[in-house]
């Protein structure tokens, strides 16, 4: 059976060019980049060249990038790194963190942990489209607030938060601003200086790079406490032997991302809008997330009276890979906190479907999904005691 992958939000295939770029670093340039011999130096050079490319995609300086193992670690380093600097170094600030109710677990679980160990966290609510309220953000800031951490774009419903406004407010109030941009990089043009972002998390495997690699942008002058202690690489911010192929792969992915972003955006938006238009023809189907302020590759729906895991497995049976915010597909058996935060009832959240597009998707893929989906929805509804028509 031919298979169609529409779960690029979960992970992407590694681009052929990226693989090609990485390959020599497995068994040819395998030296430890910290070693002084030629094997080390050639690896070091590759790491530093990649650093430039990674910085470039968010308009940062190369010496502002710290390599990590992925988006989750970047989020952890950003939040704990700022928080664990001792109070004096944080200035006169207190223990208050502001975040949103719809963050990725990399941020949300970290914030919950921070609460447990004595910090105070404000979880800003969002409207029905998933947007935070700027006024509410400003009101939440107190003299104790040292960190605002609000995601660039949501991984489930694709809503893009008002970064420029948040950045402006953070700056005015002299509060550090971290953003989880894992889903945004490569799909939204980003300039950390224009947006007044102090810390930004990105992940390689969402932008056609290899899994297990990521980076944290740390604005010059912003000081962090490391969370992985060791030999003291990355100005002491992140120890462990450099993952040379990973870094090189992430570098190449960023380079390609920067070159292709305009084309990608037009291409993906076009496919996405086809998907949305045709899927909304299904009776009692709804689009989740913001109608305009959404990632170009994200289409998120809910269907009355059916359950998302079943829907996804039925699609899988037809060769289509998608995702859902249904409780049943998660290990915790709880409906997605994002869908609840935008005001859906648990039973509504269960019936959700996320389709996230990528470079390899075609018009034919979209047509196939749009052809197959209505019948599956109908079959499941026929089976459902909640569908009485």
């Amino acid at each position: 059976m031919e298979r169609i992958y529409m779960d690029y939000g979960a992970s992407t295939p590694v681009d052929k060019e990226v693989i090609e770029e990485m390959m020599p670093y497995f068994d040819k340039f395998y030296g430890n980049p910290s070693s002084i011999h030629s094997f080390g130096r050639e690896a070091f050079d590759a790491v530093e060249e990649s650093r430039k490319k990674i910085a470039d995609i968010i308009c940062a300086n190369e010496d502002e990038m710290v390599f990590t193992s992925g988006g989750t670690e970047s989020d952890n380093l950003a939040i704990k790194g700022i928080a664990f600097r001792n109070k004096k170094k944080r200035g006169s600030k207190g223990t208050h963190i502001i975040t949103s109710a719809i963050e990725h677990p990399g941020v949300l679980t970290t914030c919950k942990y921070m609460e447990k160990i004595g910090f105070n966290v404000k979880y800003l609510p969002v409207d029905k489209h998933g947007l935070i309220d700027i006024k509410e953000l400003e009101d939440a800031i107190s003299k104790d607030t040292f960190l605002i951490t609000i995601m660039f774009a949501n991984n489930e419903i694709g809503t893009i938060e008002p970064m420029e406004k948040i950045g402006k407010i953070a700056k005015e109030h002299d509060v550090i601003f971290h953003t989880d941009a894992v889903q945004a990089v490569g799909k939204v043009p980003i300039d950390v200086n224009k947006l007044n972002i102090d810390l930004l998390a990105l992940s390689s495997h969402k932008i056609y790079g290899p899994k297990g690699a990521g980076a944290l942008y740390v604005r010059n002058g912003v000081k962090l406490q490391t969370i992985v202690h060791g030999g003291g690489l990355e100005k002491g911010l992140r120890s462990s032997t450099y993952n040379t192929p990973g870094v090189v792969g992430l570098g190449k992915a960023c380079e390609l991302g920067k070159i292709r972003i305009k084309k990608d955006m037009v291409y993906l938006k076009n496919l996405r809008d086809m998907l949305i238009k045709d899927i909304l023809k299904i009776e009692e189907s709804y689009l989740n997330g913001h109608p305009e302020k959404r990632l170009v590759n994200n289409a998120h729906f809910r269907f009355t009276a059916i359950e998302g895991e079943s829907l996804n497995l039925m699609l899988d049976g037809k060769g289509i890979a998608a995702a859902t915010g249904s409780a049943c597909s998660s290990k915790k058996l709880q409906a997605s906190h994002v869908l609840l935060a935008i005001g859906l009832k648990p039973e509504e959240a269960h019936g959700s479907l996320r389709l996230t597009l990528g470079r390899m998707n075609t018009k034919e893929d979209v047509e196939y999904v749009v052809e197959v989906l209505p019948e599956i929805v109908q079959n499941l509804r026929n089976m459902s005691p909640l569908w009485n028509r």
Partner: protein
Amino acid sequence: MDEQYTEMVKDHFFNPRNVGEIKDADGVGTVGNPICGDVMTIYIKVKDEIIIDIKFKTFGCAAAIATSSILTGMAKGKMLDEALKITRDDVANELGGLPAIKLHCSNLAADALREAIKDYRKKNKR
């Protein structure tokens, strides 16, 4: 750490047996809650204490649908007293096992059947 569905589960999910309603059912049982993501209704026709027809409607995950499907097969043709003895474990075993996290939440079919039988007996009190 194997948390995946067995072939048997997939078979009953993709080709569920006995889906539907019985308009003139002798007993109907519904369990579950849409908030939790699983609702199951079982319809039975009974003759001489034997389940001569059984159908289900299920809102829920693949495990919920597969357990409904296999349970209806297990119960059909059984004496009511025998059918009452079918446990959740029996259902899971018949499917070759269920992922641990699905074992308790989605495995409601045996309960729904019991409700249906209870309903039948209530209506047909001698």
